């Protein structure tokens, strides 16, 4: 019972954070709302008995990725955004579309797939179980994913340190100097 109450409270916090993320006009407030979403998701994982996933969620998402988000916002010194009236197409089709879509997803999850209820501890929780799954049962997909991430990192490095761009900037520095 206590579990259910805490779970619902953090579910509400998570949803409120997500709504706040969209409503806020200042990018740093939005980024911090996303941190709240990540944090409450971690609590939800914890309540389902997946303590390792919860810890990783906090360390990786809230503690590293979102810090970089905040870092970039600080670096670019992004100010408050202007509010536009929005497009009429989005109002006419977007909101009903989102409503229908979420009802559809909820219906499928609850009625059709049999995944409606997750008991506490039903998810693989302890680090040993997760390690076994990742490095034994799903070794190939795991390694393929890691290679994919590696390629993405290399791509980012190549894009960021484009040799032509470096030459150009040094030339322009010389001209200015």
């Amino acid at each position, binding site marked *: 019972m206590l579990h259910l109450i805490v779970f619902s409270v953090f579910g509400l916090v998570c949803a409120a954070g997500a709504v706040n993320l969209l409503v806020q006009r200042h990018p740093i407030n939005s980024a911090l709302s996303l941190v709240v979403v990540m944090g409450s998701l971690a609590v939800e994982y914890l309540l389902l008995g997946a303590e390792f996933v919860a810890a990783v969620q906090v360390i990786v998402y809230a503690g590293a990725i979102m810090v970089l988000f905040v870092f970039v916002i600080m670096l670019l010194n992004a100010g408050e955004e202007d509010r536009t009236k929005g497009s009429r197409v989005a109002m006419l089709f977007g909101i009903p579309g989102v409503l229908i879509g979420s009802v559809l997803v909820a219906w499928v999850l609850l009625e059709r797939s049999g995944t409606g209820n997750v008991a506490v501890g039903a998810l693989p929780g*302890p680090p040993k179980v997760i390690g076994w799954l990742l490095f034994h049962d799903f070794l190939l997909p795991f390694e393929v994913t890691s290679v994919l991430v590696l390629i993405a990192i290399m791509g980012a490095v190549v894009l960021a340190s484009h040799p032509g761009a470096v030459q150009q900037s040094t030339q322009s520095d010389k001209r200015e100097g």
Partner: protein
Amino acid sequence: MSLGEFILVSIVKIVIAIGILLTAVAYTVWLERKVVGHIQNRWGPTRVGPFGLLQPLADGVKFIFKEDLLPPHVFKPLYIAAPMIALIFALTSISVIPIGNWITVFGIHTPLEITDVNIGLLVVLGITSLGVYGVALAGWSSNSKYSLLGGLRASAQMVSYEISLGLSLVGVLILAGSFSLRDIVDAQGGTFWGFIPRWNIFQGQIVAFFIYLMAAYAETNRVPFDLPEAETELVAGYHTEYSAMKFAMFFMAEYANMITVACLATLLFLGGWHGPLFGPPFLQAILPVFWFAIKIFAFLFLYIWVRGTLPRFRYDQLMAFGWKFLLPLAIANLVITALIVALRA
């Protein structure tokens, strides 16, 4: 244990833990001023109480009665929240750190920590990784160039060194086979050949220990990695615009983080509360906590010694050192440890 007992015991333990931590923070400041004073051929605080021992108390009272300025150019909500975030996460991380064995007080058998979780190490890392928000937001919300530069430096530095820090701990985890801090300490009991303790630092993790040491200095923004608050170029870095208790909160958070880092080093590399036990039963119950405190004191003393000795790095040196030296070294240490453990098994 019934629910009422559980809540009562938890509250008592939380109050004691926070009390000890805040006292330790206050006296680490005193120790630092004393030791750095002697290194620089001065006396340090001497006026308030014997050996200046009441100086932290006087400082605390002063911080409380100072005027709390709110500069007009700041982004108010985050400016006020930032020191709270920094302090809250610094104090919370102590909650899963065990300082000794199980004890029995008034018939209640309980571990010497607020709560024993099986992913203790990850909890500490997670909480400390959130602490960077306090620094980053303080720098940004102050709306001043010194603070912004300090905040940017701090977040870049903390994110970079967190990787080496985490990787240096994995070797210990492989040896212990558990994330639980209590299990890790238990795995370090006993001795080799009767006199060398089986601490992880003597089990081949000495390189990892030094990686951890350097990454920890960078994580806590201490000399020689104190670029976020380098006073010769940035006034005071991210807390330039803060005064009175808000400044004191950053100050306390920094020292609380130092103590957390010292606790982790003791638990993971220096054998936790293990040490020679002797004497009557009462002494045997107290001694583990005493050994633990001695090791933390030694680690903190090293911190202060380094501060009194080394100059500050340049920022590009700091980043190059973290990414090009510490990180490859940590990965090499991890691979070698894993190989040895795999071959031994």
